[in-house]
Each structure stands twice: as C-alpha cells, then as structure tokens.
C-alpha cells in the first residue's frame, strides 16, 4: 500500500465531494465517494493499514462537513473493522460482492448517522430520511465499479489479493 497514492486519492475525493457534486447528483440522491474508499481498503489492506486509512478518510470527511468533528472517523473505523472481519467469508474480488457490501454498509452507516442527527436536532422525518438513505446508498453502490477500477489502477491490488 502506497500512502502517497492514498493521500492523493483522498485529496481528489475531498475536492470532488465538496465542489462538484452538483454535476452528478440525481435529485436528492448524492453518492458518498468516501465510502467506497473505506470498503476498498477494508477489503484489501491488513487491519492496521485499513484502520489508519479509514481514520484519515473519516477525518477528511469531518473537515469538509458541518457536523461533529470526529464522528465520521469513528463510524469509518467501525465500518472498516466489520468489513475487514467478515472479508474472509466473502469473495471480495468479485464485483457483485463489492457492490453489495458497499450498499449494505453504506445503508448501515447512513442509518447510524441519521440516528445521530435525529438525536441532535429532532428534525429529520422518517420517510424522507429512509428514502434518502436508500437512494444515496444505491447511488454509492452503483458507482463502485468505476471507483474500484480507478483505485486499483492507482493502487495495484494484486499484492493485496495474494496476502
């Protein structure tokens, strides 16, 4: 795992996520570009590198959002740990697995964040929130093949799969 490449990818994602999302949003559905990165490293890196990478991804998301500072790094470390712990029973090289795992864990992450937001502000309506979670997670999962392809080009994955 090359850390320089990782930070370049993270910088690119942060810039795109914080400036150009209006170009790819479909209605209220906005993909989370950080999340596929979490899944990518959880699938492919060892536990220590995976945790450190997810912490940086979470901190980066915290920096570019107006929420509690640190909440995303906690969620991403937890998500990364769970994906890492079950990856042994998954065929993680297959595209369908990558898409499904991203969708399921993105739903879980969004539900956790929505619960946190609801407890803090009491203003999210249940039906709209569930719909947003579903559409955003679906959109995030749909773009996984393209993102994983880009990530694997920048960060060769053969060495990871042979581990």
């Amino acid at each position, binding site marked *: 795992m090359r850390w320089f490449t990782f930070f370049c990818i993270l910088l690119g994602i942060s810039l795109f*996520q914080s400036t150009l999302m209006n170009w790819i949003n479909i209605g209220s559905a906005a993909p989370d570009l950080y999340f596929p990165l979490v899944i990518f490293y959880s699938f492919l890196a060892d536990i220590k590198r995976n945790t450190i990478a997810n912490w940086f991804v979470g901190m980066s998301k915290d920096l570019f959002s107006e929420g509690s500072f640190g909440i995303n790094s906690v969620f991403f470390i937890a998500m990364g740990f769970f994906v890492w712990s079950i990856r042994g029973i998954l065929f993680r090289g297959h595209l369908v697995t990558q898409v499904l795992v991203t969708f399921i864990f993105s739903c879980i992450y969004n539900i956790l964040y929505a619960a946190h937001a609801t407890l803090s502000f009491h203003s*999210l309506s249940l039906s709209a929130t569930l719909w947003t979670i579903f559409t955003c997670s679906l959109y995030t999962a749909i773009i996984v093949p393209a993102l994983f392809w880009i990530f694997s080009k920048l960060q060769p994955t053969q060495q990871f799969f042979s581990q």
Partner: protein
Amino acid sequence: MRTATPSFSDLIKNPIAAIIILLAISLSFLFLPPKLSNRIKMTCVVPMRPLQWATCFCSNSASNFLDKVFSGWRNAHVKKQLEEQVSEFKNKIIEQQDTIYKLQSKLYTLSKFQAENKSKTKPIPADIIGYDSLTFRKSITVNAGSKHGVKANDIVVSNNALVGKVVLVSGGSSVVQLITDPASRIPGRVLQTREQVIIEGNATGFCQLKYVPRWAKLKKGDDIISSDIGGFYPPSLPIATVMETEIKGGDLFQSVKVLPKVNISKMEQVLVIIN
C-alpha cells in the same frame, strides 16, 4: 521476572492498540468544546480553500461555457437570466405586499425601526466555493471571511431571499448553514395569514413548518417570510413557499412542507449581510 513496559512504537505496531488510539483521538475531538473543534477544522481546511475555489471556478466556467454553447438552440442563457429576474421581481413584490400589510396595520414605528436597521447593514458579494460532504447536513463554503468583515451569525441571502446564516468563519472563507440543514430553525410568518411559524430544515431539498396550529388555513403557494421575533433575522425576507399541508389524526399541529425560494443547487453567488 519483570517484563519491560512496551514503548509507543511497539503499541503502534499492535493493530488493536492502533485502533484504540485512533478511536480515542476521534472521541477526544468529539468531546472538545464546539468553538475549539471548529477552530481546528477551519485551520486544517484553510490550505484546501484555494484548491476548492479553483475547482469551483473551473466547474462554473465549464458550466457557463456549455450553457453558452447550447443557448444557440434553446436560448437557455437568456431564459435563465429572465427566470432569475422574474424570481427577483416576485420576491420584491412579496416584500412590497408585506410592507403594505404593515402600513395598513398602522405599524409606522416598526417600519421606521426596520429602515434604521437596514441602513446599518452592508452586503458583501461572495462566491460559493464548496458544499457539505455529508448527506444529512446542508452547508456551503463561501469565499468571504473575517478579512472582509464577516462574523458568525451574519445572514446570507440570494435574489432577496434567505439562504442561511454564517456558522464558521476563517480569514478568507466562511461556512454557511443553509435553511435546509437539520440544525436550522428560523422564526417566520405566513405572509397571507400572518400566522407565526418556525421553519426547520430536514436535510432534503424542502423544509418543514413547525407549530402550525390545526386551524391555520394554509394553502399551496402561500409565502413564508422571516419575522423579527428574536431579533436575529431581518423581517420580511422571503424564505419559502408552501407546497403541501397535512392534518394527521390527533396531532395538535399541521404538517406543512415548504419549498425554499432559492434553488440552492443552482446558486453560484450569495450576499453576506454584515451588521
């Protein structure tokens, strides 16, 4: 036999210890006072602002170029300008209607106070250089900061309609909490019926009205304006339009869905009103 205490480098090599250390750092950030954590955030993000500005500038330029290319076929550019003007005029009409209401009610003193207040404010144009990266938070970053006189809690408008308020300020940029953010609560008034309401964001493209009594007669198309209750927001600023009203079984209040006057996804510039 005594064992040596593990050094910090040994701890870092242990994956579980690394997880615990990183979690502890994140949790300590979470429990920091908001002022301090916001300052850390703004300081860390400052080097990224020029990159954000450049990306936004390129994206807006590309968008404008494409608009111009297609305008030959559909006059899209002219239509957009006309739509903006119409929207601006509509908002001005709403403001005028509200002033008439107030004159009819002989609230001359209040109008005078409002005029005095307005003269104390100064608008600063700012470009939007970034958006919130979270699905459930709605904020924008603008390229006007404390160097330009912007302070926390300054009001942000676009096309004479309320956009939000400044929550974080650094030297050259500020973060604006939009009216659609779940943490946003704005005291307002229904222009036509004069009912007092609270406009609350819910992280979608719409907002909802809180504490609208069951007997309030709201209908689709009614305008919501800011009220001077609390003294935080300037009065008579258009905010949203009523889209749907629903009265559920035994609820004390109506459920009202409103559409913000400004299309936040299409905004490029805003005005920060500084006192």
